[in-house]
């Protein structure tokens, strides 16, 4: 495990978070340190997405972002959609040329990522011809190519099968120093993350290291209000 340093990567103190002008989370205090692998759990509407968005904005230049709505460009190929994560690293002329005809260096870089997320066959098909799971993998590919130390994902593997999900989460954890994920699958959370944060009723209802959790702690999060 990476040693925890004293400087938090993300820090929120008594924050009120709003979504569409409604308060979703109030009096929120939270610190996340480098090297942590955090899972956010909680029912839908608990404010996971809003919290993740806030975290991303704190360090937008260090975060590889994988939102729930992948926001891919449907008429472009998976190749281009993945490459879009690397636009900032290249000159505009190179990007334009690559849009018209995929260039060799970009092909090499992207196809390596495609192999790791099992998307080689569909790489040059447009995203509107791909299945939901393939689109989600494209979105993960876009996050991976950014080569950033922090990964923030909002249900990044919700649409892929169990076996794929495990592979992808493993890959994500390998390639990023710090990981913050919203997950609805408790087993996945316990398997891949070191710290679980549960949201309920506009507040943090649970925040504990994985080792100190009991099954009943988690179950209480989803009980009817």
């Amino acid at each position, binding site marked *: 495990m990476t040693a925890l340093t004293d400087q938090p990567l993300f820090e929120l103190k008594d924050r009120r978070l709003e979504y569409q002008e409604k308060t979703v989370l109030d009096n929120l205090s939270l610190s996340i340190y480098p090297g942590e692998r955090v899972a956010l759990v909680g029912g839908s509407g608990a404010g996971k997405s809003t919290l993740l968005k806030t975290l991303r904005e704190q360090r937008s230049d260090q975060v590889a*972002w994988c939102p729930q709505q992948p926001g891919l460009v449907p008429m472009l190929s998976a190749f281009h959609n993945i490459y879009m994560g690397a636009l900032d690293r290249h000159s505009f002329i190179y990007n334009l040329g690559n849009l018209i005809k995929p260039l060799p260096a970009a092909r090499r870089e992207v196809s390596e990522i495609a192999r790791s997320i099992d998307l080689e066959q569909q790489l040059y098909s447009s995203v509107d011809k791909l299945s939901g799971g393939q689109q989600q993998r494209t979105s993960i590919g876009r996050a991976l190519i950014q080569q950033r130390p922090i990964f923030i994902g909002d249900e990044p593997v919700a649409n892929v099968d169990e076996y794929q999900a495990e592979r992808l989460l493993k890959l994500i954890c390998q390639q990023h120093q710090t990981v913050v994920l919203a997950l609805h699958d408790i087993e996945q959370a316990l398997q891949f993350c070191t710290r679980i944060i549960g949201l309920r009723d506009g507040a943090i209802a649970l925040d504990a290291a994985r080792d100190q959790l009991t099954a009943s702690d988690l179950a209480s999060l989803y009980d009817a209000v």
Partner: protein
Amino acid sequence: MLFNSGANSLDTSAKALRKTSFWFAAIALLCLLCADLDISTVDPWHELSLMAARCTQPLGLVMVNTVNQSCQYLFLCPAGCRSWQPLAVLFSHLGYGSNIVRAFCAFIRSIHELFWALLFIQITGLSSLTGLLAIAIPYAGTLAKIYGELFEEVDLAPAQNSPAAKQPLTHFFYTVLPLAWRPMATYTSYRFECAIRSSAILGFVGLPTLGFHLETALGEGHYSEAAAYFYALLLLIGTLRFWLQKRLLPIYLLAVFYYLPPQAQVSWDLVARFITEDIVPAPLRGEALFTASTFSEFANWFSLLWQQQIWPGLINTVVLGQISLVFTGLLALLLFPLNSPLFFRRWGRTTGDGLLILLRTLPEYLLAFLGLLILGPSMLPAILALGIHNAAIIAHLVGRHSEELVLRGDASGGLNRYFYEVLPRIYRQFLAFLFYRWEVILRETAILGILGISTLGFYIDSAFEEFRFDRALY
């Protein structure tokens, strides 16, 4: 390498769109080869600098004068167009489904208001009635088309749940019209703006609207005076949304009939002559029909007309239309970020859209006329005029369409955003807008002939000037 040729090539929806665009551009390039694009004036910059210098110094007095002289006329024609609206509604309801009505509407709107005016001037003279008919007829065709399409798109559920389905008119007033009313009103107010432009343009054939004074001033080189007329036109269209109010419409209509009752001295002798003689092909006049000699003379007349005027006119119209279409498209792609929240926020966007509205306000006919003064007669002024006017319209619409796009929080900015995020997403809609303008561009291409660019309109106009109506009609 790992790539095999199959997986190597792109198989995307964007590729199909790219292919379409490529062929369009290629055809336009071919057209460029046979288009006449020479700048024939000796020193275009001189005239341009004169215009620029003078357009900043129009006197207030001239301005007041202008508005006085022209506004009364200006209101008339658009008001006429509104009074035809019920007709258009009826048209579009009663039979937009039927091919005959559809074809009839297409026919009356495919003839530009300037041609209608040239036709009616022969019968009703330089009167307000001429202006009214010239605008109302093609506009009724256009409105009928749009209304018809809106009615077709209406949600069917209310009609299916209503017992009124057996009575067509009841069904129409209860389940179709109310649903289509709002978009109809929006589109009609846009046509009102067009009608004001058109009524200014009718000045170019002699009706005393703003355009008449504008053309006279430009032609005589009184650029500061022309600028005043021009600003008056901009002001009129720019302030449209303030004075075009539902409650004020009845007042305007009454005022119109007070100032400029649509009447004309119709000389029935002239009408009779026009119908029975002037528009009858020359060889057929006063001859017994269906004889061999008449027939062969008519065939000669027609083939001569075809070889010397219709065919070259047709080719030029298509060539000019194609080049203008592609130029319009390129310019629109360049301009649309001005009205897109993805590129400019608040004030930036307001200013940008203001610029687009300004460019759209300039009637293409006027732009072409200015271009002609500066560059001399060739296709160039026409291409520039059609391109600027139509590109501004498409750019405005595409910009508005881009409001609906939601980009990811980490989407790139600037040119990368334009080419990777936005362009692929809006391109299909952009093509739809562009092809929709195609019909309009071809129609406008023809009328630019009146300015001396040798499209079909050129030959039609010369025939009118030589009083050979039979040629003009065929």
